[in-house]
């Protein structure tokens, strides 16, 4: 096998192993997976409009803006993020307080901005 073929093999096999490891989580088999909740922001609503979290349990929120820049604000959970237009952000949150909260878009996004919110329950 020539050096070039060896190189090609390395660039074919190694990424495959890496991808497989990422997909299966095999790179850190002992670490518990952080649950992910996908949220979409689009004028003038979040989808889903209600999520439920568990007190003391960390969860990753993956928020995507489908149109303009939105805010993602909930003071009791220390959430204060900007979601740039068309982009996705991720934020980990560990609720410390049980209750039902109203999360709002606090980046002015248009006429009905004041009604853009979602309910966050913490059990």
């Amino acid at each position: 096998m020539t050096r070039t073929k060896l190189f090609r093999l390395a660039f074919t096999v190694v990424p495959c192993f890496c991808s497989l490891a990422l997909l299966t989580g095999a790179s850190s088999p002992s670490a518990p997976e952080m649950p992910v909740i996908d949220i979409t922001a689009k004028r003038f609503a979040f989808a889903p409009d209600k999520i439920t979290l568990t007190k003391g349990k960390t969860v990753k929120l993956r928020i995507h803006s489908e149109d303009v820049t939105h805010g993602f604000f909930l003071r009791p959970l220390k959430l204060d993020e900007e979601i740039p237009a068309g982009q996705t952000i991720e934020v980990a949150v560990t609720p410390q307080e049980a209750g039902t909260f109203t999360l709002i878009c606090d980046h002015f996004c248009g006429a009905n901005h004041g009604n853009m919110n979602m309910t966050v329950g913490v059990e």
Partner: protein
Amino acid sequence: MKQTDRRSFLKIAGSSLGIGVLYSAYPAAHATGEAGDFFNTLGQSSGEKLTPFSFVQLSDAHVGFNGPPDPLGTKAFERAAEMINGLPQRPDLILFTGDLTHDTEDRDVHVQRMKQFQEISKRINVPVIKHVPGEHDAGLDGGALYREMFGDTYYSFDHRGVHFVALDNVTRAKPEVGAEQLTWLKKDLARFPKTAPIVVFTHRPLFDLRPDWEWFTSDGDDVMNVLSAYDNLTVLYGHIHRDDEHQTGSVHHYAARSLIFAFPDPNGVSGPRKPVPFDKDHPFKNLGIRTVAFNGMPQPGSAPLSIDDIELTAREFRGINGVQQLLRNSKV
């Protein structure tokens, strides 16, 4: 340094017309010591004699708004203009605390709404009208169109011994003032003694009134750290479409009602905010008159201001304006 009587500075009395709030200021009537010296200096530099005066706060006309909570359009704003012109005591100033217009992404339409606001404003027989933007005026374009039509989004001026500061907490799209404006604010106020009478007017509350309804300013604590150094400072704001009073340290905060529709008392209401439903039998309900009177030196445990509310449809005033109205009518 002499101690100066608080009541020497800012006496507030007036009528909230639902349309807003009329304030009377008597800044120099009894000023002594440091404050007296300051007033004299200010008077000499501005050329203005320090005399009592009144002003009106208006807020949230949302010109161009077309939605279910209020089918009246600009009628309340127009009624407000009429009522101000009928006040027994002509105010020196109008302070408009934001949301002059309702937002639209069509620039030409927004220009028309701003022109319509200016046309109605011109009917008010008051020589000076000052504005700050609301998020519906300036939140979508960073305040570009507002600046073209109304000028700076933050500034200050002096009037008869009172220093007025217009603060902008909307043009950054988020509810915040920002570091640049905060630096300007510190510099602007640095020349004043701590006893100077100061009125700050802005759109959103500078304290956490109801953050989940976006009734707050995220860097409001930083702003209040600057403002709380002053003993006689009043903050006037809008945004919440209802009257409200709040105190942080020595600073008093007053919200004016809107000219379009009302929001409910946030206390005891959970979940998202919803407007008070329109009452066709009482179209100006919740847009009534509020009178505010300063009672002199505040006593421990008592409020320094007394408040009186009268509906927008009222033809007669109460409080100081009522007395003045009676006196004027008795001369006829």
